């Protein structure tokens, strides 16, 4: 999705410096668009199978017809989402080579192994998706429901592998550079690099927030429109429970992930915190932008910056002035994106905590319109937080593609500014795919509400009538 941050990114940097390759900025925007689009679907690939499994199992165990209906519908929705996720994932594997031959040619054998295992995991996920989707009514129910489990597991493995590569880009390891050549390559050290696990945990929990809040939101909208039956309550509750656990866990995971960032990537931390100079103790700087080296429009909360970022009341956040100018990331995008993520994450965590506290006291917030509206907004908000988080970490790593080792301009292919055309065409295609997906998913929901179950293929007028 084209988040405001990405647009801002484009606007702010539309005037590249003279030394920058003409293809660099369009290549970066291209990657941002295709990754930003794919990551939303990837979240469903990681988190949706577990929700379907729980729903399907409930249907079988308790003979719950509502649950079975929901599981079957979700499976059909996931078929559409996984299909476009599979192609947008393929786009990325092409773009790795087409846009970034400098990175892949030099470090392909260093960073490649996790991708091999990711491919393996996705292979299994695709196979079991096929078996599960087309197995309705064709397999014994007990065996059929178990076909979801491999999907849930492989979604996790695949996400870990991809995030491991990104973690490696942040904290490179598993090779040496001797005389300008990459030597002593240890691919397993990349797959199991120290940073990968925490970064994965952050992404994994985030995926449950995105998928959980988005699916729950659909049923919140239904309830707002007066469809307050047990079908809608169940459709809301199962994903909302997943999302709730994820949302309250996420702030802690994020905090632990951030520990030590001052040593790993001091420039990124300084940009997150909008620390122009080293202040002791550092304030927490809410909002604000850097204009000509001055912080404008920020609200400072004293000491809190040191407490949160450094886990200490008096240790300062190292300022941008300690970092050579050519090694600084675009500060404003990084800062605003980071705070967008943290702000939304905090809001969602507080919201679900409030819901469950009220429920313990016997107040059912699902009866309140304002809560349902908020629940409907939570899905899009979680998506924005996810996008903002990726913008923050990726833009914050600039100007490096592999931190401290390879600069992004060295990685990009030899293109002229004609590469902007590719971005233009891609934007049109991704917009069309988004519209197509929304139209098709909404029409599926409409027909289900109308009492259809099978959604026959409407390839000819009479075929439409002839099939059940």
């Amino acid at each position, binding site marked *: 999705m084209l988040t405001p941050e990405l647009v801002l990114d484009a606007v702010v940097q539309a005037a590249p410096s003279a030394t920058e390759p003409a293809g660099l900025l369009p290549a970066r925007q291209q990657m941002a668009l295709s990754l930003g689009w794919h990551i939303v679907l990837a979240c469903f690939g990681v988190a949706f199978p577990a929700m379907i499994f729980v729903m399907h199992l409930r249907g079988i165990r308790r003979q719950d017809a509502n649950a079975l209906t929901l599981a079957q519908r979700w499976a059909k929705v996931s078929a*559409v989402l996984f299909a476009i996720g599979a192609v947008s994932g393929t786009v990325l594997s092409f773009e790795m080579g087409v846009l970034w031959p400098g990175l*892949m*040619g030099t470090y392909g054998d260093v960073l490649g192994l996790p991708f091999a295992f990711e491919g393996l995991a996705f292979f299994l996920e695709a196979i079991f998706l096929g078996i599960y989707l087309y197995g309705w009514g064709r397999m014994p129910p007990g065996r059929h429901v178990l076909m979801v489990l491999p999907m849930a597991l492989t979604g996790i493995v695949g996400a870990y592998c991809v995030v491991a590569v990104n973690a490696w880009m942040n904290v490179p390891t598993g090779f040496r550079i001797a005389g300008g050549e990459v030597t002593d390559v240890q*691919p397993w050290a990349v797959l199991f690099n120290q940073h990968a696990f925490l970064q994965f945990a952050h992404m994994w929990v985030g995926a449950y927030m995105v998928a959980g809040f988005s699916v729950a939101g659909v049923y919140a909208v239904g309830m707002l429109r007066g469809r307050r039956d047990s079908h809608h309550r169940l459709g809301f509750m199962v994903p909302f429970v997943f999302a709730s656990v994820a949302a309250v866990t996420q702030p802690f995971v994020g905090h632990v992930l951030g520990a030590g960032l001052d040593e790993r990537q001091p420039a990124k931390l300084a940009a997150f915190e909008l620390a122009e100079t080293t202040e002791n103790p550092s304030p927490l700087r809410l909002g604000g932008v850097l204009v000509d080296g001055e912080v404008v429009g920020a609200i400072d909360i004293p000491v809190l910056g040191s407490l949160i970022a450094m886990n200490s009341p008096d240790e300062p956040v190292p300022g941008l002035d300690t970092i050579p100018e050519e090694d600084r990331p675009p500060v404003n995008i990084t800062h605003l994106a980071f705070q967008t993520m943290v702000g939304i994450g905090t809001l969602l965590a507080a919201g679900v905590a409030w819901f469950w506290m009220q429920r313990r006291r016997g107040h059912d917030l699902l009866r309140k319109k304002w809560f349902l509206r908020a629940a409907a907004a939570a899905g899009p908000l979680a998506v924005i937080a996810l996008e903002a988080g990726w913008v923050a970490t990726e833009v914050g790593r600039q100007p490096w593609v592999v931190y401290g080792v390879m600069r992004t301009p060295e990685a990009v292919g030899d293109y002229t500014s004609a590469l902007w055309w590719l971005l233009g065409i891609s934007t049109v295609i991704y917009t069309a795919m988004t519209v197509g997906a929304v139209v098709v998913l909404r029409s599926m929901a409409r027909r289900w509400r109308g009492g259809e179950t099978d959604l026959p293929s409407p*390839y*000819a007028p009479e075929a439409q009538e002839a099939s059940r």
Partner: protein
Amino acid sequence: MSLEVAVAAAMFAGVIAYAVLGGADFGSGFFDLTAGDSRRGAELRTLVDHSIGPVWEANHVWLIYVLVIWWTGFPESFAAAMSTLVLPLLLALLGIVLRGASFAFRKYSATLGQARMFGVIFAVSSIITPFFLGTVAGAIASGRVPADGAGDRWSSWLNPTAVVGGVIAVGTCAFLAGIFLVADAHRSRLTRLTEDLRTRALAVGLATGAVVFAAVVPILKDAPVLGDGLTGRAAPLVVLSAVAGVATMVLLWRRRYSAARWPAVVAVAAVVSGWGVGQYPWLLVGEVTISEAAGAPATLQGLLVAVGLAVVLVLPPLAYLLRLTQSEAWANH
């Protein structure tokens, strides 16, 4: 077999699997496109959905498998091919994106109008994608990708061998799809459709066979390294492909639909293997050999571990899925 040749063989096994399994999927777009108007074509289009719906995502992963092994095992040659062949690759990618998305959208369309629009996009992109992937193969096989990646971005794939490669890819896909669709139709007891598909599959098979063997002429002239390989080391594979192709046609003629699937697979696998064996030991013909292109040995070993795991973990469920979709119970549902 050296480590790097083992990895290259594993990668090429992925190419063959993609050509056979992905090819049958792609080719169904040809039959979908030529199925006639919505009234006449509805039955065939429903059959296409039914046949490739469960498997297309799994079949598609072979492409990702090949790309990943390539960039991990032979990174510099990957970067070179991607840089030189950026145009056909992006066009193939466009086809992949449009095809996958519109296939899913069509299946759940609400109206005939929507289904028709997504159907046309699906069918057309199913044809252009193998064409451009075929040109990529032809460009590499005719030595048009220099090791530094600075090859011409147009003439590298707009030349006799590359275009022939594209046409062969489209043809073999349609050939395979015809055989599989007619077998599916027969299993589903769609008698009229079976007869109709049989006629068209025979025509497609004859045309594809003619193209494949006529292609030897431009290849010998335009791509001498590959030509030498095809007439020398890979000659048995070429012969095998011809025999299997003829066997497929005979079985199809005699309405032995289920049996015809096996020689069809052998024919296509043999053609593709002929290309691989024909250009061995080159990875980028005339530029880089497999052993010269190889990345770090530890990574190659890691890749072989991944491939071994794939054989153990992926192949059994894949076989289960394919068996399910090719079973009687599945067809009669």
